[in-house]
């Protein structure tokens, strides 16, 4: 395959959206990390300078990926996966600790975060395993293997500790659903979360009453149908009530205080104003400040480099996980809505790309990375604008951070490469 035809077949719309996100992200990193002393934007002692370097590395990486054989990734996916497991295990021995988490290798000029690489590797391994002709996702044994592929990195990442990153791997279940895993699992997970949250919010009694009412209504409207499976329904009811009853135990005994505080804040559980104030000053500080910063931006924002709260560094981690708050302050609703729309179009386009793949591997890989990127975006923005509890993960292509940007870019361009060569491989 010639390089020319690859260029022609590349999906330039996706690349354009990618570049917009990276460029706008850098502009905001510049604003959030700018200090009084004037530095050149290429000064690598500054964060914006470093990020510019990482963008360059990412683009070089992208070109390399595009120039590789398209079946390179499928062929070497197992190697990548094993390498990433080795790297994750190696962290326990050689890892560098930053902010309490042993998640990095110190490469001198650059700290490498293997959990970012592991996302790519796991997505590839997952696609490879599922696309194997002998794998049938409806089979229990194969389901178990697939889940194991996801769980091994999770088990290695949780103790770093980096629960946020570990959470991301569960997004790969989307691939399983897409490929035939019964949606019932998703339904169960959804009901479980709903039960948990609503029990916390409204208490066991109200949840049980609600469940009773819902089941009665269900019976009432389906009275004539003979097809109702009464046993599963009653079973569901009993299990739900049991789960609801156990929520308080799990919340109070299994969760740690900091987790409890996050939920308290998110669901407005705490009614004692003194304690609430304390939560706002400690764990809720970020969320509170981020919301305020976004709010203060108004419709048009305060303007580039004019965000007072950004300058004052009021929102901790505003160049990484909380960068969206700076967008809100300096660019206003116009800016934030623009970013949301760009991301939405970007993801929809990726779904389109994944769906048009003729090869199972490509499609499954596509779904894998869409799930990973989407969960990042969903959890990050949701957290910054106060819709979700605090979980520390970056906004893809946007937040400061070399490992993140390089491997997000790699993930994306592997898909673009597979897409560009999809016709040839028929």
């Amino acid at each position, binding site marked *: 395959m010639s390089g020319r035809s690859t260029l022609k077949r590349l999906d330039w719309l996706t690349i354009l959206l990618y570049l917009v996100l990276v460029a706008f992200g850098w502009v905001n990193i510049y604003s959030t990390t700018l200090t009084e002393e004037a530095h050149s934007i290429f000064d690598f002692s500054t964060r914006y300078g470093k990020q510019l370097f990482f963008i360059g590395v990412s683009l070089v990486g992208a070109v390399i990926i595009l120039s590789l054989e398209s079946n390179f990734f499928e062929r070497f996916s197992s190697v990548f996966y094993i390498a990433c497991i080795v790297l994750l295990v190696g962290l326990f021995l050689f890892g560098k600790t930053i902010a309490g988490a042993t998640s990095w290798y110190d490469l001198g000029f650059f700290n490498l975060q293997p959990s970012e690489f592991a996302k790519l590797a796991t997505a590839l391994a997952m696609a490879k395993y599922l696309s194997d002709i002998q794998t049938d996702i409806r089979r229990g044994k194969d389901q178990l293997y697939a889940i194991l592929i996801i769980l091994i990195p999770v088990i290695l990442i949780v103790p770093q500790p980096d629960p946020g990153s570990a959470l991301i791997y569960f997004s790969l279940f989307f691939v399983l659903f897409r490929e035939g895993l019964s949606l019932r699992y998703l339904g169960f997970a959804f009901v479980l979360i709903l039960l948990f949250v609503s029990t916390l919010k409204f208490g066991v009694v109200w949840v049980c009453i609600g469940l009773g009412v819902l089941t009665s209504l269900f019976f009432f409207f389906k009275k004539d149908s003979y097809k109702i499976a009464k046993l599963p329904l009653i079973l569901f009811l009993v299990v739900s009530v049991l789960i609801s009853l156990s929520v308080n135990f799990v919340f109070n005994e299994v969760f740690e205080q900091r987790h409890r505080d996050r939920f308290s804040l998110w669901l407005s559980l705490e009614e004692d104003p003194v304690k609430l104030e304390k939560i706002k000053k400690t764990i809720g500080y970020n969320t509170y400040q981020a919301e305020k910063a976004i709010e203060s931006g108004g419709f048009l924002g305060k303007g580039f480099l004019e965000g*007072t709260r950004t300058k*004052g560094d009021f929102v901790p981690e505003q160049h990484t996980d909380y960068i969206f708050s700076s967008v809100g302050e300096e660019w206003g*609703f116009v800016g934030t809505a623009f970013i949301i729309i760009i991301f939405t179009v970007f993801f*929809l386009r990726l779904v389109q790309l994944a769906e048009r793949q003729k090869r199972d591997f490509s499609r499954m890989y596509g779904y894998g990375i869409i799930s990973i990127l989407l969960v990042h975006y969903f959890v990050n923005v949701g957290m910054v604008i106060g819709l979700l509890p605090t979980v520390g993960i970056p906004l893809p292509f946007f937040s400061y951070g070399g490992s993140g940007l390089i491997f997000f870019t790699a993930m994306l361009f592997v898909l673009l490469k597979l897409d560009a060569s999809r016709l040839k491989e028929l």
Partner: protein
Amino acid sequence: MKKILLSSIIVIVGIVFIGRLSYLQIFSFSPNQILEDPAIKAVYDYPERGYIYDRNGELLVGNQPAYDVMVIPRDTKALDTLEFCGLLGITKEQFIKQMIRAERYSTRLPSVLVPQLAKEDYARLQEKMRKYKGYYIQKRSLRDYLTHSAANVLGYISEVNESDLRNNPYYRAGELRGRTGIEKQYEDMLRGRKGVKYIQKDRFNRDIGPYKNGKLDTLPKLGKELHITIDKTLQEYGERLMVGKRGGIVAIEPSSGEILTMISGPTYDPALLVGRERSKNYTKLHYDSISKPVWDRSILAEPSPGSPFKTLNALAALQEGVIDSDTKFRCYNGFYVGKNKKGCHCGGGVRNLNSGIFNSCNAYFAGTFRKIYGKYKTTAEGMDVWEKHMKSFGLGNYLGTDMPTGRPGRIPNKKFYDKWYGEGRWYSPTIISNSIGQGEVAATPIQLANMTAAIANQGFYYTPHVIKQIGDQSSIDVKYTQRNYTTIDKKHFKPVIEAMANVYRYGTARWLQIPGIEIAGKTGTVENFTRIDGERVQLTDHSVFVAFAPIENPKIALAVYIENGYYGSRYAGHIASLLIEKYLKGEITRTDLEKRMLEKTLEQEYAKPYSGAPFQINEYEW
């Protein structure tokens, strides 16, 4: 289904996010950003408050530095508490209490530990302050009074309260504002305009540079210095004379309406309301409900004016043409209202305008008053004509001075009596007391002084005011430089002034004569009542005297009103004559009189109604 699952999730997430963002950024957005923003600190630069000078350029009010000991709790280190408290002059308990308060406010921001150190403490402390990390001394500016007088005129300043903050966006919590007197009236000029610097802060509340490079910052504008019309010497002298007496004195320069002195007795030293003891002193003054030192009697007390008011009735009768200077009335040591006789102390006999005034004959003025309303079809109609004349002298309504308080006094008219008695149900006996300045008329001392100035000017007055000059402005409010004409023609003043001169020469004020000075005046002895246990009890008469001098080209017109001072000439007259002498001559020749007036007090008189025992009024001993 499975194919569109992910796409639907993507779209739903997008919609939810944009919904939440529009809630935050469009609906919750508050436009008042710069003041609510924790990242921007406004640092104010307060200009010095304007100085106040008297009419001769003598400084009355300046500023003095005060030293607050401040603390930033997080910067403090363990120290020898006992030694430190010793230096500060506070107890250990106070120290601990203040520290807890400071910590509760903020560990990073400064709080006041000890306010307004004494100067000696400051000198001692200053050298040793280095030893105590986290504590420092902050200089503030306080009012410094170079006189112990004129508290009622100068007024005081105090911290702004909630309602100031709500109503005036200029003020921030903790700032000072004029509360009474000149400090209140000319607040905007005296305080100047504070400068502001907006500082960009980080989340640890550290300064990280000017906001928008200082584009919005402003420089402070100095407060203006004020020259007032008060004569410091006269004011101080008058207040010394008022020691132990209650009442009000106002002296006006008739040719300009400038208030030369404005005294309320008892008064207080304005310095009491400055500094560390301020709140203690304020409470003490404010809650003295018997002698009421913060109640400015010179402008707020509204007693019946008494006999000085007769001069106006004479003028109104002359203007209405119902008498001339030879019109005579017989005094039967009193006069009859219907069948009731009302008394008179003038000695009886035939009275004309001249002797009616200088002997203060009640019968003469009852007759005159009857003639005024007798000219009209009904008494009521006559009353309204009379009211118009009286009001043209600045009575019965707010005078419009530049003091922030005041009272209207009262000139009763038809409406007033209709309201009290019902229309057509009041007759001449109801109103006859007004002829001699008793009854329903009421006037503040400043109104009486102004009325006297109008007589001195023979038909006009300038609205009394205390402002002489504001900064380097060339003129004051035109309101204070315009003549207000009375309804009486100039020609009618001559006989009345002549009669007032005779009051001093041969009449009721003949005891007051000052060598070399001709005075026109009028005494007043005002009956007054109080309620003791719900019962109306008469008290010793108020002593009133109005006068101007010299008769040709008057320099001073004044009204002195002394509560329960008995005869007009006794307290009010003597005090007035001393003030006139002091002002015109600069020194007192009648030192015996001066000594007596300085020493005599009326405290035993004021104690009577509170004694619970029966008491005599209008005692003769003197």
